[in-house]
Protein backbone atom coordinates (compact mmCIF):
# COMPACT_ATOMS: atom_id res chain seq x y z
CA UNK A 1 0.00 0.00 0.00
CA UNK A 2 1.28 3.46 -0.84
CA UNK A 3 2.16 5.86 1.93
CA UNK A 4 -0.64 8.07 3.30
CA UNK A 5 -0.47 11.49 1.68
CA UNK A 6 -2.38 14.01 3.80
CA UNK A 7 -4.47 16.79 2.33
CA UNK A 8 -3.46 20.05 3.97
CA UNK A 9 -5.31 23.32 3.48
CA UNK A 10 -3.37 26.53 4.10
CA UNK A 11 -5.22 29.74 4.89
CA UNK A 12 -2.74 32.53 4.31
CA UNK A 13 -2.83 36.30 4.14
CA UNK A 14 -2.17 38.10 0.89
CA UNK A 15 0.48 40.46 2.23
CA UNK A 16 2.91 38.26 4.13
CA UNK A 17 2.59 34.50 3.93
CA UNK A 18 1.25 34.35 0.38
CA UNK A 19 4.13 36.53 -0.77
CA UNK A 20 6.47 34.43 1.38
CA UNK A 21 5.24 31.24 -0.29
CA UNK A 22 5.75 32.96 -3.64
CA UNK A 23 9.34 33.67 -2.61
CA UNK A 24 9.78 29.99 -1.77
CA UNK A 25 8.85 29.21 -5.34
CA UNK A 26 11.00 31.86 -7.00
CA UNK A 27 13.90 30.76 -4.79
CA UNK A 28 13.42 27.24 -6.21
CA UNK A 29 13.05 25.70 -2.76
CA UNK A 30 11.25 22.38 -2.94
CA UNK A 31 8.64 21.52 -0.32
CA UNK A 32 5.85 19.02 0.29
CA UNK A 33 3.13 19.18 -2.36
CA UNK A 34 0.40 18.21 0.11
CA UNK A 35 -0.54 21.79 0.79
CA UNK A 36 -3.37 23.68 -0.96
CA UNK A 37 -2.91 27.40 -0.49
CA UNK A 38 -5.93 29.69 -0.12
CA UNK A 39 -5.22 33.41 -0.26
CA UNK A 40 -7.11 35.80 2.02
CA UNK A 41 -6.90 39.58 2.35
CA UNK A 42 -5.82 39.22 5.99
CA UNK A 43 -5.74 36.63 8.78
CA UNK A 44 -8.38 38.80 10.45
CA UNK A 45 -10.67 37.81 7.58
CA UNK A 46 -10.36 34.07 8.20
CA UNK A 47 -13.65 33.04 9.80
CA UNK A 48 -13.35 30.02 12.08
CA UNK A 49 -16.16 28.42 10.10
CA UNK A 50 -13.83 28.22 7.09
CA UNK A 51 -11.50 25.95 9.07
CA UNK A 52 -14.43 23.67 9.91
CA UNK A 53 -15.41 23.67 6.23
CA UNK A 54 -11.89 22.55 5.32
CA UNK A 55 -12.25 19.56 7.64
CA UNK A 56 -15.74 18.88 6.29
CA UNK A 57 -14.30 18.82 2.78
CA UNK A 58 -11.76 16.18 3.64
CA UNK A 59 -8.71 18.08 4.92
CA UNK A 60 -6.42 16.09 7.21
CA UNK A 61 -4.57 19.15 8.38
CA UNK A 62 -4.88 22.93 8.33
CA UNK A 63 -2.31 25.71 8.25
CA UNK A 64 -3.22 29.27 9.18
CA UNK A 65 -0.52 31.85 8.63
CA UNK A 66 -0.16 35.59 8.28
CA UNK A 67 1.96 38.60 9.09
CA UNK A 68 4.02 38.80 12.26
CA UNK A 69 2.53 40.92 15.06
CA UNK A 70 2.93 44.64 14.27
CA UNK A 71 3.41 43.84 10.55
CA UNK A 72 -0.25 43.63 9.54
CA UNK A 73 -1.09 45.50 6.34
CA UNK A 74 -4.29 46.63 8.04
CA UNK A 75 -2.51 47.39 11.35
CA UNK A 76 -4.41 45.00 13.61
CA UNK A 77 -6.01 42.15 11.63
CA UNK A 78 -3.52 39.59 12.91
CA UNK A 79 -3.99 40.73 16.53
CA UNK A 80 -7.74 40.13 16.20
CA UNK A 81 -7.05 36.79 14.53
CA UNK A 82 -4.73 35.75 17.35
CA UNK A 83 -7.47 36.29 19.95
CA UNK A 84 -9.94 34.35 17.86
CA UNK A 85 -7.50 31.47 17.44
CA UNK A 86 -6.78 31.27 21.16
CA UNK A 87 -10.51 30.98 21.91
CA UNK A 88 -11.33 28.72 18.96
CA UNK A 89 -8.45 26.34 19.59
CA UNK A 90 -9.43 25.82 23.21
CA UNK A 91 -13.04 25.17 22.18
CA UNK A 92 -12.02 22.57 19.57
CA UNK A 93 -9.80 20.85 22.08
CA UNK A 94 -12.66 20.80 24.60
CA UNK A 95 -15.08 19.28 22.08
CA UNK A 96 -12.54 16.56 21.27
CA UNK A 97 -11.09 17.67 17.93
CA UNK A 98 -7.37 17.01 17.72
CA UNK A 99 -5.81 20.50 17.64
CA UNK A 100 -2.54 18.98 16.44
CA UNK A 101 -4.22 19.01 13.03
CA UNK A 102 -4.34 22.81 12.99
CA UNK A 103 -1.06 24.69 12.79
CA UNK A 104 -0.60 28.41 13.17
CA UNK A 105 2.37 30.50 12.09
CA UNK A 106 3.59 34.01 11.41
CA UNK A 107 5.49 33.94 8.12
CA UNK A 108 6.56 37.19 6.47
CA UNK A 109 7.06 37.94 2.78
CA UNK A 110 10.81 37.53 3.29
CA UNK A 111 10.58 34.12 4.96
CA UNK A 112 10.36 31.83 1.94
CA UNK A 113 12.64 29.31 3.59
CA UNK A 114 10.56 29.33 6.79
CA UNK A 115 7.42 28.58 4.74
CA UNK A 116 9.06 25.56 3.10
CA UNK A 117 10.31 24.26 6.41
CA UNK A 118 6.97 24.88 8.11
CA UNK A 119 4.98 23.05 5.42
CA UNK A 120 7.40 20.12 5.56
CA UNK A 121 7.16 19.89 9.35
CA UNK A 122 3.35 20.10 9.32
CA UNK A 123 3.11 17.48 6.57
CA UNK A 124 5.34 15.10 8.52
CA UNK A 125 3.28 15.69 11.69
CA UNK A 126 -0.03 15.05 9.95
CA UNK A 127 1.36 11.94 8.28
CA UNK A 128 2.15 10.62 11.73
CA UNK A 129 -1.40 11.38 12.91
CA UNK A 130 -2.88 9.58 9.89
CA UNK A 131 -6.13 10.38 8.10
CA UNK A 132 -8.71 12.53 9.90
CA UNK A 133 -10.79 9.44 10.65
CA UNK A 134 -13.10 10.95 13.28
CA UNK A 135 -14.23 13.68 10.95
CA UNK A 136 -14.51 11.30 7.97
CA UNK A 137 -16.93 9.20 10.00
CA UNK A 138 -19.09 12.31 10.49
CA UNK A 139 -19.05 12.93 6.76
CA UNK A 140 -20.06 9.36 6.00
CA UNK A 141 -22.87 9.56 8.52
CA UNK A 142 -24.03 12.88 7.08
CA UNK A 143 -26.59 13.26 4.35
CA UNK A 144 -25.10 16.47 3.00
Amino acid at each position, binding site marked *: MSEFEPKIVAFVCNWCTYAGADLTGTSRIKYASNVRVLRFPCTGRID*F*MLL*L*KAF*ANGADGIIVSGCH*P*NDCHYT*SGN*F*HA*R*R*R*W*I*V*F*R*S*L*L*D*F*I*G*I*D*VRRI*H*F*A*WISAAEGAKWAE*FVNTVTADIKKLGPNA*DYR*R*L*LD*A*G*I*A
Partner: protein
Amino acid sequence: MQELRNKVKELLSKGTVQTVIGYGEGTAGKVRPVFITDPGNTDSLIFDLRCKQNLAVYLLKPEVKQLGKAAVVAPLFTLKTILQLAAEFQLADGDIVIIGMDDEGKLIEFPDLAAVEAFVTRYDDLSAETKAELDRIEKMPLEERWQYWQKELSRCIKCYACRAACPLCYCTRCTVEINQPQWIAVPSHDLGNLEWHIMRAMHLAGRCINCGECARACPLDIPLNLLTQKLIREISLHFNQRAGIGSKAENTLSTFKPDDKENFIN
Protein backbone atom coordinates in the same frame (compact mmCIF):
# COMPACT_ATOMS: atom_id res chain seq x y z
CA MET B 1 -44.16 39.23 46.20
CA GLN B 2 -46.66 41.89 47.27
CA GLU B 3 -43.81 44.40 47.18
CA LEU B 4 -43.17 43.43 43.54
CA ARG B 5 -46.86 43.69 42.61
CA ASN B 6 -47.17 47.11 44.24
CA LYS B 7 -44.09 48.35 42.42
CA VAL B 8 -45.45 47.12 39.07
CA LYS B 9 -48.85 48.67 39.78
CA GLU B 10 -47.17 51.99 40.53
CA LEU B 11 -45.02 51.88 37.36
CA LEU B 12 -48.02 51.13 35.15
CA SER B 13 -50.52 53.51 36.72
CA LYS B 14 -48.05 56.41 36.74
CA GLY B 15 -47.30 55.67 33.08
CA THR B 16 -43.55 55.28 33.69
CA VAL B 17 -43.75 52.13 31.56
CA GLN B 18 -46.44 50.69 29.30
CA THR B 19 -45.63 47.03 29.83
CA VAL B 20 -44.00 44.88 32.48
CA ILE B 21 -42.28 41.61 31.64
CA GLY B 22 -42.40 39.27 34.59
CA TYR B 23 -43.01 35.73 35.76
CA GLY B 24 -46.45 34.19 36.17
CA GLU B 25 -47.92 30.83 37.13
CA GLY B 26 -48.01 28.44 34.18
CA THR B 27 -49.37 24.94 33.83
CA ALA B 28 -48.13 21.77 35.57
CA GLY B 29 -46.28 23.73 38.26
CA LYS B 30 -44.17 25.56 35.70
CA VAL B 31 -43.54 29.27 35.47
CA ARG B 32 -44.25 31.22 32.31
CA PRO B 33 -43.45 34.78 31.23
CA VAL B 34 -46.26 37.32 31.55
CA PHE B 35 -46.61 40.70 29.89
CA ILE B 36 -48.65 43.06 32.02
CA THR B 37 -50.05 46.24 30.52
CA ASP B 38 -52.97 46.86 32.87
CA PRO B 39 -52.27 48.02 36.47
CA GLY B 40 -55.29 45.95 37.56
CA ASN B 41 -53.68 42.70 36.43
CA THR B 42 -50.63 42.65 38.65
CA ASP B 43 -51.89 39.71 40.75
CA SER B 44 -50.68 37.24 38.12
CA LEU B 45 -47.08 38.23 38.90
CA ILE B 46 -45.04 35.80 40.97
CA PHE B 47 -41.45 35.46 42.02
CA ASP B 48 -39.89 32.34 43.56
CA LEU B 49 -37.05 29.87 43.05
CA ARG B 50 -38.63 28.48 39.89
CA CYS B 51 -38.25 31.84 38.15
CA LYS B 52 -35.09 31.08 36.24
CA GLN B 53 -36.00 32.11 32.71
CA ASN B 54 -33.96 35.00 31.37
CA LEU B 55 -36.66 37.49 30.45
CA ALA B 56 -34.15 39.83 28.80
CA VAL B 57 -34.70 37.74 25.67
CA TYR B 58 -37.95 39.67 25.07
CA LEU B 59 -36.46 43.15 25.38
CA LEU B 60 -35.24 43.38 21.79
CA LYS B 61 -38.22 41.70 20.13
CA PRO B 62 -40.08 44.09 17.80
CA GLU B 63 -43.44 42.77 19.07
CA VAL B 64 -42.50 43.69 22.62
CA LYS B 65 -41.00 47.05 21.67
CA GLN B 66 -44.34 47.91 20.04
CA LEU B 67 -45.97 47.72 23.47
CA GLY B 68 -44.04 50.82 24.53
CA LYS B 69 -41.45 51.30 27.24
CA ALA B 70 -40.92 48.11 29.22
CA ALA B 71 -39.96 47.19 32.75
CA VAL B 72 -38.42 43.79 33.34
CA VAL B 73 -38.25 41.63 36.45
CA ALA B 74 -34.53 40.99 36.68
CA PRO B 75 -32.71 38.51 38.91
CA LEU B 76 -28.90 38.48 38.78
CA PHE B 77 -28.50 36.78 35.38
CA THR B 78 -30.99 39.13 33.72
CA LEU B 79 -29.14 42.10 35.19
CA LYS B 80 -25.91 40.83 33.65
CA THR B 81 -27.65 40.31 30.32
CA ILE B 82 -28.93 43.88 30.36
CA LEU B 83 -25.40 45.18 30.95
CA GLN B 84 -24.06 43.05 28.11
CA LEU B 85 -26.82 44.25 25.78
CA ALA B 86 -25.92 47.83 26.72
CA ALA B 87 -22.24 47.13 26.05
CA GLU B 88 -23.26 45.91 22.60
CA PHE B 89 -25.32 49.07 21.99
CA GLN B 90 -28.61 47.17 21.93
CA LEU B 91 -29.96 49.08 24.91
CA ALA B 92 -29.21 52.49 26.33
CA ASP B 93 -29.44 53.64 29.92
CA GLY B 94 -33.06 54.60 30.56
CA ASP B 95 -34.56 52.59 27.66
CA ILE B 96 -36.08 50.17 30.13
CA VAL B 97 -36.93 50.11 33.82
CA ILE B 98 -35.12 47.40 35.76
CA ILE B 99 -36.97 45.72 38.62
CA GLY B 100 -34.02 44.04 40.31
CA MET B 101 -34.58 40.97 42.47
CA ASP B 102 -32.06 39.58 44.93
CA ASP B 103 -31.66 35.93 45.93
CA GLU B 104 -34.35 36.24 48.63
CA GLY B 105 -36.87 37.78 46.27
CA LYS B 106 -36.42 41.29 47.71
CA LEU B 107 -36.80 44.23 45.35
CA ILE B 108 -33.63 46.17 44.51
CA GLU B 109 -33.81 49.68 43.09
CA PHE B 110 -31.46 50.46 40.22
CA PRO B 111 -31.60 54.12 39.21
CA ASP B 112 -29.15 53.54 36.34
CA LEU B 113 -26.84 50.96 34.77
CA ALA B 114 -23.90 52.09 36.91
CA ALA B 115 -25.84 50.88 39.98
CA VAL B 116 -26.39 47.52 38.26
CA GLU B 117 -22.67 47.26 37.55
CA ALA B 118 -21.84 47.84 41.20
CA PHE B 119 -24.26 45.06 42.16
CA VAL B 120 -23.30 42.30 39.70
CA THR B 121 -19.51 42.47 40.01
CA ARG B 122 -19.82 40.88 43.45
CA TYR B 123 -20.78 37.54 41.92
CA ASP B 124 -18.58 34.91 40.26
CA ASP B 125 -19.33 33.78 36.71
CA LEU B 126 -18.93 30.04 37.23
CA SER B 127 -20.16 27.97 40.15
CA ALA B 128 -17.98 25.37 41.86
CA GLU B 129 -20.08 22.56 40.33
CA THR B 130 -19.59 24.01 36.85
CA LYS B 131 -15.85 24.28 37.34
CA ALA B 132 -15.72 20.67 38.54
CA GLU B 133 -17.69 19.49 35.50
CA LEU B 134 -15.38 21.44 33.16
CA ASP B 135 -12.37 19.90 34.90
CA ARG B 136 -13.84 16.43 34.53
CA ILE B 137 -14.28 16.80 30.76
CA GLU B 138 -10.92 18.53 30.28
CA LYS B 139 -9.16 15.66 32.02
CA MET B 140 -10.65 13.01 29.72
CA PRO B 141 -8.31 11.65 27.06
CA LEU B 142 -8.96 13.28 23.66
CA GLU B 143 -10.78 10.29 22.17
CA GLU B 144 -13.05 9.95 25.20
CA ARG B 145 -13.83 13.66 25.07
CA TRP B 146 -14.74 13.35 21.39
CA GLN B 147 -17.00 10.37 22.14
CA TYR B 148 -18.61 12.21 25.04
CA TRP B 149 -19.55 15.17 22.86
CA GLN B 150 -20.54 13.01 19.90
CA LYS B 151 -22.94 11.16 22.17
CA GLU B 152 -24.37 14.36 23.63
CA LEU B 153 -24.62 16.24 20.34
CA SER B 154 -26.06 13.28 18.41
CA ARG B 155 -29.34 13.90 20.26
CA CYS B 156 -29.61 17.43 18.85
CA ILE B 157 -32.63 17.83 16.57
CA LYS B 158 -31.64 21.33 15.40
CA CYS B 159 -34.76 22.92 16.82
CA TYR B 160 -32.67 26.00 17.67
CA ALA B 161 -34.49 26.43 20.97
CA CYS B 162 -31.07 27.27 22.44
CA ARG B 163 -30.82 30.14 20.01
CA ALA B 164 -34.39 31.33 20.57
CA ALA B 165 -33.99 31.29 24.35
CA CYS B 166 -30.67 33.13 24.36
CA PRO B 167 -31.05 36.87 24.94
CA LEU B 168 -27.69 37.49 23.27
CA CYS B 169 -28.57 35.59 20.05
CA TYR B 170 -30.41 38.60 18.66
CA CYS B 171 -29.18 38.68 15.05
CA THR B 172 -32.17 39.08 12.76
CA ARG B 173 -30.54 36.74 10.28
CA CYS B 174 -28.53 33.92 11.79
CA THR B 175 -25.67 32.21 9.94
CA VAL B 176 -27.60 28.92 10.01
CA GLU B 177 -30.26 30.49 7.81
CA ILE B 178 -27.74 31.60 5.21
CA ASN B 179 -27.65 29.14 2.33
CA GLN B 180 -25.42 30.95 -0.14
CA PRO B 181 -23.05 29.50 0.95
CA GLN B 182 -24.58 26.89 3.24
CA TRP B 183 -22.47 27.24 6.37
CA ILE B 184 -24.28 24.67 8.45
CA ALA B 185 -25.98 21.60 6.98
CA VAL B 186 -29.75 21.75 7.52
CA PRO B 187 -30.46 18.13 8.60
CA SER B 188 -29.55 17.19 12.14
CA HIS B 189 -26.78 14.73 11.36
CA ASP B 190 -23.57 14.52 13.37
CA LEU B 191 -21.54 16.88 11.18
CA GLY B 192 -24.16 19.62 11.09
CA ASN B 193 -24.82 19.27 14.81
CA LEU B 194 -21.12 19.60 15.63
CA GLU B 195 -20.72 22.64 13.40
CA TRP B 196 -23.82 24.29 14.82
CA HIS B 197 -22.71 23.89 18.43
CA ILE B 198 -19.18 25.09 17.73
CA MET B 199 -20.53 28.10 15.89
CA ARG B 200 -23.07 28.93 18.56
CA ALA B 201 -20.40 28.83 21.26
CA MET B 202 -17.95 30.88 19.20
CA HIS B 203 -20.54 33.56 18.43
CA LEU B 204 -21.14 33.85 22.17
CA ALA B 205 -17.45 33.92 23.06
CA GLY B 206 -16.80 36.82 25.39
CA ARG B 207 -20.53 37.65 25.38
CA CYS B 208 -22.22 34.77 27.20
CA ILE B 209 -23.11 35.69 30.77
CA ASN B 210 -23.90 32.08 31.75
CA CYS B 211 -27.60 32.33 32.54
CA GLY B 212 -27.95 28.70 31.41
CA GLU B 213 -31.11 29.43 29.48
CA CYS B 214 -29.86 27.51 26.39
CA ALA B 215 -29.44 24.29 28.34
CA ARG B 216 -32.81 24.72 30.09
CA ALA B 217 -34.52 25.34 26.76
CA CYS B 218 -32.96 22.25 25.17
CA PRO B 219 -35.70 19.59 24.85
CA LEU B 220 -33.03 16.87 24.64
CA ASP B 221 -31.16 18.00 27.78
CA ILE B 222 -27.84 18.48 25.99
CA PRO B 223 -25.44 20.24 28.40
CA LEU B 224 -24.58 22.72 25.67
CA ASN B 225 -23.89 25.56 28.08
CA LEU B 226 -20.70 23.68 29.06
CA LEU B 227 -19.25 24.93 25.77
CA THR B 228 -19.92 28.56 26.57
CA GLN B 229 -18.84 28.05 30.17
CA LYS B 230 -15.55 26.66 28.90
CA LEU B 231 -15.08 29.84 26.83
CA ILE B 232 -15.92 32.02 29.83
CA ARG B 233 -13.14 30.29 31.73
CA GLU B 234 -10.63 30.54 28.86
CA ILE B 235 -11.39 34.20 28.23
CA SER B 236 -11.00 35.08 31.86
CA LEU B 237 -7.73 33.13 31.96
CA HIS B 238 -6.18 34.55 28.78
CA PHE B 239 -7.63 38.04 28.58
CA ASN B 240 -8.92 38.68 32.10
CA GLN B 241 -12.30 39.70 30.72
CA ARG B 242 -15.84 38.95 31.87
CA ALA B 243 -19.07 39.52 30.00
CA GLY B 244 -22.06 41.21 31.58
CA ILE B 245 -20.32 43.28 34.20
CA GLY B 246 -20.04 46.59 32.40
CA SER B 247 -22.38 48.60 30.19
CA LYS B 248 -19.36 50.08 28.43
CA ALA B 249 -17.15 46.99 28.47
CA GLU B 250 -15.10 46.03 25.44
CA ASN B 251 -16.01 42.93 23.48
CA THR B 252 -13.32 40.25 23.75
CA LEU B 253 -13.17 39.21 20.12
CA SER B 254 -13.43 42.67 18.63
CA THR B 255 -10.58 44.07 20.69
CA PHE B 256 -7.03 42.91 21.33
CA LYS B 257 -3.88 43.63 23.28
CA PRO B 258 -0.55 43.64 21.42
CA ASP B 259 0.86 41.39 24.13
CA ASP B 260 -1.88 38.72 24.14
CA LYS B 261 -0.12 35.49 25.07
CA GLU B 262 -0.33 32.15 23.27
CA ASN B 263 1.99 29.18 22.94
CA PHE B 264 0.97 27.59 19.64
CA ILE B 265 1.92 30.04 16.86
CA ASN B 266 5.21 29.21 15.14
